[in-house]
């Protein structure tokens, strides 16, 4: 029997951090997604301990402010793309509003830090979501295109192909065949 899971990362990470940080006996509050405020000063060795523990789980402590903002931009974009009922606003407007900076500033900052553009990142995220939806196998390509605010399946196809080099239907096929092989093992 197969079960498809959807992750709410906010809850997941929160619970996880609570679990892990509690073992250190530290006083802290989780103030947001990816934000923890320690209510006391932590000695360097402890920080190293925490850092290496979290690193095992692929969690990194970001230090740089710029990096933080960029991370925020990424998170906002991810949230915007992956929302169930995504608002039909332009990304630029949405980001500027959410993060209280001009879109121009955010765009420049993003490119400086990541060497890639916000638009690219958005497209990447959308295509990622499309991939997830295809893997979940519940919606048709038309429905997926509609959900992601593409004007047509052709539009989705074109962007999909430009990003990954293959068409959504090819991707579908490959996933299906992979599943077949996994099932027969």
């Amino acid at each position, binding site marked *: 029997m197969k079960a498809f899971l959807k992750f709410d990362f906010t809850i997941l990470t929160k619970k996880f951090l609570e679990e892990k940080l509690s073992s250190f006996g530290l006083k802290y509050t989780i103030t947001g997604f990816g934000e923890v405020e320690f209510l006391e000063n932590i000695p360097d060795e402890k920080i190293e301990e925490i850092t290496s523990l979290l690193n095992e789980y692929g969690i990194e402590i970001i230090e740089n402010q710029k990096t933080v903002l960029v991370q925020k931009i990424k998170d906002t974009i991810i949230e915007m793309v992956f929302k169930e009922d995504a608002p039909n606003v332009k990304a630029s407007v949405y980001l500027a509003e959410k993060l209280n900076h001009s879109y121009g500033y955010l765009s420049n900052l993003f490119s400086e830090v990541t060497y890639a553009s916000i638009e690219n990142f958005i497209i990447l995220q959308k295509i990622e979501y499309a991939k997830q939806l295809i893997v979940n196998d519940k919606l048709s390509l038309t429905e997926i295109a509609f959900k992601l605010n593409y004007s047509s399946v*052709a539009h989705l*196809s*074109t962007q999909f*192909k430009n990003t990954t080099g293959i*068409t959504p239907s090819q991707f579908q096929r490959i996933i299906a065949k992979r599943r077949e092989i996994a099932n027969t093992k």
Partner: protein
Amino acid sequence: MNILSFYRSPIFLRIVFVLSIAIIFFIAAVTYKQINALTNSSNQVLNTYNVAVELEKMYTYINDLETAKRDYIASNDQTIKFAIKIHQKEIEKALLKVEKITKGNKTQREYLKILRSLIKHKYYIVNSILAKDYSNGILGSTELNNDFLSGKKVMYDIRKVINKMITIEESLLNKRNSIYKDNQKTTPLYIYLTLLITLVLLVLSYVKMSKDLNNIKSYNNELLVSNESSNLSEIVGNYGTWQLNLDTNKYTFSDNEYRLLGYEPKAFKANLDDFMKHIHPDDYEMVKEVTLKMIYQEVLPSFTYRIYKTNGELRHFRASGRVVTKSEERILIGTTTDVTEVIIANQEIEERNRILESNNKELQAFNYVASHDLQEPLRKIETFISRLIDKDLDNLSESGQQYLSRINAAAGRMRILIDDLLQFSRTTRAEQVFMKTDLNELLENAKQEQAQLIEEKKAIINNETLPELEVVPFQIQQLFSNLINNSIKYSKENIPPVINISITEVDTESDEKINSITNTKFYKIIFSDNGIGFEQEYADKIFTLFTRLHNKDEYAGTGIGLAICKKIIENHKGYIFANSEIDRGSTFTIYLPKEI
């Protein structure tokens, strides 16, 4: 059932036969009746005659009696009494005779009664006279006279009655005569009529019978001819026929059935074992099984086996048969055909096919591997050239630079050639998967493939919406791509190429360019452009491999592109045609069957 069909039916003769017998009986009956009537009539005549005679005789006797009486009176001779007695006896005899003859006639009996009484009266008179004695001579003359004449009245009456009786007899006779005469007249008429009818019927029967006989003769002839013909056809067709009576288990072989085995016709009494003797040992069990099945299931499906002829030659036979019921007998009829030539020819063809297929496979593999493996060194050359141009171009002399640039160009051409060859080899590979595809998607992909060229030449492509069709996707995409590439490549200088793609549905009746037997409905897709065009006389040639209408300095090309298009279309059982005029652009028409 109308007269003619009744005449022709087989019951006709039977009915005629029965009718004739009936008529004969009828005639016999009628004849018998006539003879009877005749006999009756003559009897009647005889009777009447007899009555007359007897009555006359009787009168004579009575007269004699009278005379005797008178004699007695005259002579008183006592001996006359004896004579009188005799006369009386005679009268009695005559009376009895007449009585007998006229037994049936009431009127006569009445008269006879009267007669009898009259005669009785006479007797009385006579007896009274006899009682007298006339010896004394003549008595008182009045008494004598009275005695003499006493019988006169009676005699007169008797005579009258007798006459009456005779008259009656005579009239009776006449009446009977006339009836008889009538009968005589009509009877022959009946007889002649029935005889005539019988004659007609008999003539008809004769005609029918002789016709039937002729028919039978001619049918027989036809049968003989037909038999001969079938015998001949058996010889010519190299087959024999046989029959197995399922009830008597008796076999019959046709003449050629024997010849097939190498025997003379009727060389042995037809039976299964002698036939089976010739069967190839490997096929023996199979044939036996099928034969047993044939006898029990009463059907023989077609099957093939090998035999050895009497001269040891190996032949292949095909046998089949079925049951036929003729007049309540079940007969299994079958044919045995010598199919050796066909089988050997087939085997040869199969062998040749195998060789061809394996050759083909080798060629295809060679083709593919060659173009594929040629790519390697070429790629290296191109990459190293690009490195050189990037890094060391300035370090080269002018001629060196020129040479390098030419090397690059040549490598570029080789690249295109190998790409095209590779493409071509891909379209001829055996395993092609047909699936229902949206042709619009393929067209879009093709446009993307040619995106750079389209951008460069600012080409415009207008297309109608294409349908879904069962195709090999990558091949049709290739087709579209090649056609677009062609149109753009051969466009007029400084005039942006415009390509129009349209589609209609046609069928074999409405469009005479396609003459397919298997498919009737086609999609007709037209690619038309505003390029430089070509002479229509080359319309077929351009689809041949490596054929070009321009040299490489005018337009780059390998002469493979359109050949690939044609190959792809052939793979899909479609058609492609080209139409053009110099300077007036070109039109490529593709027909793809709606259903594979």
